[in-house]
């Protein structure tokens, strides 16, 4: 059983295989191979496919299951392209084309004196975006990533993290021990660093807030908002959207302020969360085909 675990959808074999493929597949044949494997994963990874299909039902109310199956395939294709681009950057320093939307907000983020929290969604290549930001900006950035569920995959990713491509200005932390990390991040923000956290994905053990996303009751991470409130820094929503083959769009939203205004801390955090949802929903609705949320957003019934 232990040996076969590596071949499960989140198993380490596929990460190793992807790395091998990036080093071996000639670029011109890559599209054909990529869409083939994405199709295979769509067929075989039932839980991931069903979760994407259910999320699509929330994003596009009234949509048909059959159409959502093909939408799920499109999500898997985009995911395959994105993770391939990530590995290619890590192994071969190949970078994609970039387009900036909301450049005035992006410039405000770059020029903002003091720390700030960047909230991203699990779409496009946020890894690549953080790398690019670290390469082109003098600011130090700490990127918080959800840990891999599979221990072997987690070990592999930790090992890959240490490879030469990570710039000095970028630190990647895995969200494994929430309490310790919270203090580290608070320290980082207070010392003027940028902290990038995913705001649409809950991993076990992290604090959450109730929210409504696309009319579906769900829970979203409280961390980014609590951090911004404690450090008294703004939150910049930032989305890295895949625009085509080796082409990405960096969308920067308007800054969100989370202030303590009342005795009810959760209500104050909730206001920040609502402002975040108001920005993330249109981006996901427009680019649903790359919302890599492989768990259903709906809260499981109590």
């Amino acid at each position, binding site marked *: 059983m232990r040996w076969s675990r590596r071949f499960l959808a989140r198993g380490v074999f596929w990460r190793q295989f992807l790395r091998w493929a990036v080093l071996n597949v000639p*670029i011109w044949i890559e599209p054909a191979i990529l869409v083939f494997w994405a199709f295979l994963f769509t067929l075989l990874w039932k839980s991931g496919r069903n979760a994407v299909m259910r999320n699509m039902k929330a994003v596009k109310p009234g949509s048909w299951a059959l159409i959502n199956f093909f939408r799920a395939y499109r999500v898997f294709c985009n995911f395959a392209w994105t993770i391939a681009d990530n590995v290619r950057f890590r192994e071969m320093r190949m970078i994609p084309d970039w387009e900036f939307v909301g450049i005035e907000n992006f410039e405000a983020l770059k020029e903002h004196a003091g720390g700030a929290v960047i909230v991203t969604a699990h779409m496009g290549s946020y890894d690549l975006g953080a790398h690019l930001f670290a390469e082109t900006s003098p600011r130090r950035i700490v990127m918080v990533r959800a840990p891999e569920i599979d221990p072997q995959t987690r070990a592999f990713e930790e090992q890959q993290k240490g490879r030469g491509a990570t710039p000095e200005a970028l630190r990647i932390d895995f969200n494994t021990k929430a309490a310790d990390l919270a203090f580290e991040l608070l320290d980082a923000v207070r010392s003027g660093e940028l902290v990038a956290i995913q705001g649409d994905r809950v991993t076990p053990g992290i604090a959450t807030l109730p929210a409504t996303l696309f009319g579906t009751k769900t829970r979203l991470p409280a961390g980014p908002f609590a951090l911004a409130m404690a450090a008294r820094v703004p939150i910049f929503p930032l989305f890295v959207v895949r625009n085509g083959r080796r082409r990405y769009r960096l969308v920067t939203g308007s800054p969100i302020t989370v202030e303590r205004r009342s005795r009810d801390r959760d209500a104050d955090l909730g206001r920040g969360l609502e402002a975040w949802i108001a920005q993330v929903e249109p981006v996901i609705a427009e680019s649903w085909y790359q919302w890599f949320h492989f768990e259903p957003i709906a809260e499981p019934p109590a």
Partner: protein
Amino acid sequence: MMMNIVRDRAEARWLPSRHRYALMRLIAFLILRNARPKPQPGLILVIDRDQSTLENLTTSIWATLTVMCYMSTAMHGWWKLAAIPVGWIVIQLPLYILGAAMMPLFGRSLEANNHRLNSVFYWSLMTIASAYFVTRSGINRWLAYVFFAVLTLNALAAVILFPLRRKVAELEARCVA
């Protein structure tokens, strides 16, 4: 990190250096030569020979369809439809045979960059298969002709581009500046 990039210029998509094959480089050169400056603030284009989407998608689709059609000769009637999934799998086999099995046997690391070797192997196999189908009858004969025609055009483009290389470099330098 050294990045070869062009900022804020949409016409730089047609830089010949963003294309791999001579035929596409020549086409890109002709388009860029006649292109008007298109300022697009916030655009960053990378100069890398594998960056062209048009070139890569066209080559990929063309090669895959050709392999599917070649595979269909071994099938009859409605079974010819099976050539679609079979061809899709067969086109990957050289990669696994050479990249995962043969190269390690010859002492080449699995972690090495084998793009060039695999690409040469692929095109050699395609040339051998096309040489075979040129001698047969049916639609595959014409596909094989198309394959050799593209190969010839690419070689011709390389010959044309060689004396133009300075002009190409000047045009690119002007666009990047």
